[in-house]
């Protein structure tokens, strides 16, 4: 009885608002708009999904979004592994705490502020070109390119990768590494055969976030990406606002859900969850 009393309000919130919203999103995706009045017509059809599959532009946008999410995930994993290893297994107790806070600060520091920071760094007379000029490497044009987007995304989500990798590495008992050394494995062999496999669950946990957050973003492509760098999110945003095709926006918003579903399934197949 008391359980019901405690549980009803939060459960009602999630069922009647959140899950209901997801349900309506799904239903809306199968409606269409009247092309003259632009009103939503509640007529069941697969037209939106057909457009998504058949239109080359939308296919390219979907692929671009997925490719960037994968690239960012890979970059962050590479950046995070040595960092998290140092944090978990080399740093002193005090340095460990300091590094932990040092990762938390950028994790929580305002998202929009951090995107804007890079916009100013990349502009033609920004910090980047000033520094490159000082060391004689000449100016680069990074503002409004896919490369800029890749750097900014990797920057934004890096803490989301470091923390779970750190947790995974910290859990490895010292005896495992000693055993590996006793059995004659040299440094790199221990890294490849013991440390990396045990770090994998952490990388997968982090990748869920780096992948999902990149997939659902539209602010970064809008601000630092150039023309022709639209993401799924930008099309959704455009169709809610200017273009005013809500059913189509809903249909395109379903795509990241499906991709994330497949991603989680794939991660599970890899057996990465068993180790968590």
């Amino acid at each position, binding site marked *: 009885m008391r359980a019901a009393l405690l549980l009803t309000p939060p459960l009602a919130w999630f069922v009647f608002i*959140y899950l209901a*919203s997801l349900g309506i999103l799904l239903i809306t995706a199968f409606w269409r708009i009247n092309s003259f009045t632009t009103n939503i017509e509640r007529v069941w059809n697969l037209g939106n999904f057909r457009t998504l599959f058949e239109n080359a532009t939308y296919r390219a946008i979907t692929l671009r979004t997925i490719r960037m999410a994968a690239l960012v995930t890979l970059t962050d994993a590479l950046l995070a592994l040595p960092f998290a290893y140092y944090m978990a297994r080399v740093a002193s107790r005090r340095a460990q705490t300091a590094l932990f806070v040092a990762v938390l600060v950028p994790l929580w520091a305002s998202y*929009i502020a951090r995107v804007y920071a890079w916009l100013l760094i990349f502009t033609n007379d920004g910090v980047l070109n000033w520094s490159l000029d000082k060391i004689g490497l000449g100016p680069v044009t990074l503002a409004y390119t896919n490369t800029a987007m890749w750097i900014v995304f990797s*920057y934004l989500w890096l803490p989301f990768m470091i923390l779970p990798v750190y947790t995974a590495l910290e859990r490895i008992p010292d005896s495992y590494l000693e055993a590996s050394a006793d059995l004659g494995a040299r440094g790199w062999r221990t890294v490849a055969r013991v440390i990396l496999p045990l770090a994998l669950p952490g990388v997968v946990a982090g990748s869920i976030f780096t992948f999902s957050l990149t997939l659902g973003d539209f602010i970064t492509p809008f601000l630092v990406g150039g023309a022709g760098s639209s993401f799924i999110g930008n099309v959704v945003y455009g169709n809610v606002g200017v273009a005013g095709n809500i059913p189509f926006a809903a249909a395109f918003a379903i795509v990241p859900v499906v991709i994330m579903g497949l991603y989680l399934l794939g991660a599970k197949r890899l057996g990465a969850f068993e180790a968590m």
Partner: protein
Amino acid sequence: METALTRLALRIWVALVLAFLFIPILIIMLYAFNTSTIQSWPLPGFTFKWFPETWNDPEVREALLLSIKAGLIATAIALVLGSAASFAVHRFRFFGREVISFVVVLPLALPGIITGMALNSFFRFNGINLSLWTIVIGHATFCIVIVYNNVIARLRRTSPSLIEASMDLGAHGWTTFRTVTFPLLSTALVAGALLAFALSFDEVIVTTFTSGAQNTLPLWIFGAIRLGQRLPEVNVVVFFVVLFTVVPVTIAARLTGGGGVTRASAAAGRAAKEGE
């Protein structure tokens, strides 16, 4: 374990990653003092003149007020619903208990564009006009999990014998809650509230779809950057937004010993486990 050379390489790696994480934040803070209206590097001089200018801008004030209002109300809702859910899941065994911890994480684990688009469809479907309250509903939905995670982590670490002892000494349910359970939880609740507020104060993606014509502070920043207008004011606002998002987190990290602050890793771990 590691050779001296590996240690050195790791140290350099850590230093570079730290530089990557912090230089953009430091640079963006400096721009608030830029004398010029042109955002180039190096800054031509330092000034405080934009601070009063920004403070007196009615648009900025309105956006700030809306952000604070939405953040406070969403945090209050998240506190009530998040702790109710965590009590229920911690204290009672019931059918579908495992599903709850999965569902509350969804709004953070799914790309923001989905939560935003879903809520937008929901409000449209029910003929609800976008207002402060629709912003609050969106924010509360993803803030609940923050409070939930903090409170349930504390409950799990609290020994049940403390509560039993109180009962044995004759304190009834309410007295025990007031004098034993609540004081034990208070710092977890404060930490949860701070983090929920920080998350709400900074959110852009979901808010874009739930705010209608009004601007929260991050939306005002996004709009101004997009149009390239009033950038000196943007710099000042960004300066404070970074402070306001970082300070609560450092306090919360102290209150919880770092555990509750990892937002992503906690959620990722749970999502991964549920995915089995």
